[in-house]
């Protein structure tokens, strides 16, 4: 066991290395590229056995990943944002193949407008695909989640590919102290992949991913996939408990910070939840009974766990680092569907959108969200969803627009 300063990207590469992945189909995209460059170096220098192949697109990359997993080797891949969307047809497809492998997504906001910084619209576009999703908040979690993800994906009760998500820049390029477990200990936790009957061999002809005719066989396979994903809730708990027993670190499906005696609870995913956590700490110092819940698993959705944590709370504020245009925050809808109609459900569920394209969420904004939610609980009136944006930011954008307009008209005047 060693402790090193690692970026989230390096932590992901280490996770893949410790999992002894055989095969990495790859394609570069910021902010993920460091992962595949690192793995490429490790294969080239012989510290890892197997191969990395750069495909000509993410669509092909995910096809190759699924096909290799269907042949019976352990596969890893990584992408981001536009890459995830470019490969989306195959994200859905390989989940239907029921092939276990792990894909890291380094979240980056989607075009248009094009940008490099993070939010979660990319990963949420894969929400309904059948690929399971684990969301990380720090670099240690990235490494650990990769190992957990392989156990989960390869479990015969699950057999589904898993996406491990980390936020671009905030985790991908941020160095944090990370414990790198001993390879032997990892091998004991995560034995070599046993493909069982899922594989292509000359002696055992196999047809995979064949067409179906009609809704009945189609529904059969779709329901099977859904039930396997639900089963993954139970399997996840088992695997996470085994991980804790072996390595001492706990990665529950839902992370709870001072939720027990909280009146108002913030719910948030990903690395920005660490900002929420600090705000909760300050609020506690000031005597406000705030708490934080961070779902690590988004698919399968740990609805029961969230319900238990939120039962009897006065108010819940969901902070979405994503925006479903014309609807609002995706996590807000998910939480609402988990709570609606339960007699001990919190009476107030407020919605805030923030952190889009890497925009910061300040401590003051967190305090404000708690206070708005508390007022709503007092008055019994839930305010409309709020898009976090300050007057200063608006002024700044307007200023730039004005400058650009003046510059353009001056350009026009030149002879």
């Amino acid at each position, binding site marked *: 066991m060693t402790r090193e300063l690692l970026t989230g990207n390096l932590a992901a590469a280490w996770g893949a290395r410790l999992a002894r992945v055989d095969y990495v*189909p790859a394609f570069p995209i910021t902010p993920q590229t460091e992962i595949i460059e690192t793995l490429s170096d490790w294969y080239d220098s012989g510290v890892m056995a197997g191969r990395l192949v750069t*495909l000509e697109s993410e*669509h092909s990359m995910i096809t190759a990943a699924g*096909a290799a997993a269907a042949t019976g080797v352990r596969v890893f891949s990584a992408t981001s944002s536009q890459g995830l969307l470019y490969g989306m047809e195959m994200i859905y497809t390989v989940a239907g193949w029921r092939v276990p492998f792990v894909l890291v997504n380094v979240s980056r906001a989607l075009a248009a407008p094009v940008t490099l910084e993070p939010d979660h619209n990319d990963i949420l576009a894969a929400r309904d695909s059948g690929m399971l999703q684990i969301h990380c908040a720090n670099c240690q979690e990235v490494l650990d989640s990769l190992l957990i993800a392989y156990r989960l994906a390869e479990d015969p009760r699950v057999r589904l590919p898993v996406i491990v998500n980390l936020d671009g820049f905030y985790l991908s390029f941020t160095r944090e102290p990370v414990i790198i477990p001993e390879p032997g200990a990892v091998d004991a936790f995560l034995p070599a992949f046993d493909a069982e009957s899922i594989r292509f*061999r000359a*002696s055992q002809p196999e047809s995979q991913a064949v067409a179906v005719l009609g809704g009945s066989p189609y529904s059969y396979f779709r329901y099977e996939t859904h039930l396997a994903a639900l089963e993954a809730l139970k399997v996840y708990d088992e695997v996470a408990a085994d991980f804790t027993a072996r390595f001492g670190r706990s990665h529950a499906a839902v992370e709870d910070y001072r939720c027990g005696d909280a009146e108002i609870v913030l719910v948030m995913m990903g690395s920005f939840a660490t900002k929420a956590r600090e705000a909760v700490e300050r609020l506690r110092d000031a005597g406000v009974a705030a708490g934080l819940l961070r779902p690590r698993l988004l698919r399968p959705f740990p609805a029961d766990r969230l319900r238990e944590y939120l039962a009897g709370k006065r108010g819940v504020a969901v902070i979405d680092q994503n925006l479903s245009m014309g609807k609002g925050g995706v996590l807000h809808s998910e939480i609402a569907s988990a709570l609606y109609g339960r007699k001990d459900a919190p009476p107030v569920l407020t919605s805030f959108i923030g952190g889009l394209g890497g925009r910061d969420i300040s401590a003051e904004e967190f305090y404000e969200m708690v206070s708005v939610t508390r007022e709503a609980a007092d008055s019994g009136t839930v305010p409309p969803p709020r898009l976090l944006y300050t007057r200063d930011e608006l002024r700044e954008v307007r200023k730039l627009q004005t400058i650009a307009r003046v510059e353009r008209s001056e350009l026009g005047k030149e002879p």
Partner: protein
Amino acid sequence: MKESMYKRMKDLPSAHLLGTGTPMCAGCGGLEALHEIYDVLGSRTVFVNAAGCMTLLATYPFTPFRGSWLYTAMASAPAGAQGIRDALDILLQRRSITKEEDLDVVVLTGDGAAYGMGLSATSGAIERGLDFLYICYDNEGYGNTGQQYSGATPHGARTATSRGPSGFAGFKKDLFSIWAAHKPTYVATVIGAEPLDLARKVEKAKQLDGPRLIIALAPCPTGWDYEPRHTADIGKLAVQTGIWPLKEYVDGTVTHTRMPRPRRPVAEYLKMQGRFAHLFLDQRGKHMLAEIQARIDRYWDTVEA
């Protein structure tokens, strides 16, 4: 390379490996070619398929294949082949499987995938030197969706999206040359109606390593509008009129494996198909027909020069 074991028609395999009772149309030229190809390739194969008519060959829970099959999507069958080949190589290398368990990886797609949506994936696979065989059955349109024009549709053909008086305004893309420009191990054109030529080429491709690509012109009664019983005749005419040159590319050299001499007028081939009926109606059709003939003549002038 070994001498071909297919010297005469009677040398062709007599036992047929591909099962019958598939949902393909009667007289499907693509299926005819696939039967012949499969007899030579055998069952130690995994077919990686892209969306198209042939996708329905393996329909849960049945398959006519004795070997393996993976359906991918329309654009990325070559990438599926890459994943399987790489995985098998990794397993062989670390001795997790024996050589006897190894498989030939065969991509099977239509022209829509091969000439268009999947071309980037094919180009990538060739450039990476992937050891695979690509079989394109070319029915000159998006057949499965009702024969709209594709990058393989010939000039003048009526399709579901070129119903005007002159048919398709574009020209059939030269996929053979596009593939050959990548300098793969082997490229060939074949047709089911010339089974000996086809068997020799598939046999040759099977013996080689690296990227090997074969385009089979696939007369399609449904899309080309003719009686199913004419598939073989139309196929023979495609070769005899010179509109479908049988050729192969090896080591930088293109060789024509059949020289149609004398060439029959292309009108004989075209008039058997409803999709070209408008060429035989009026003055405009006559003019187009002359143009099509002239293009074929120019092609063979350069070959024979």
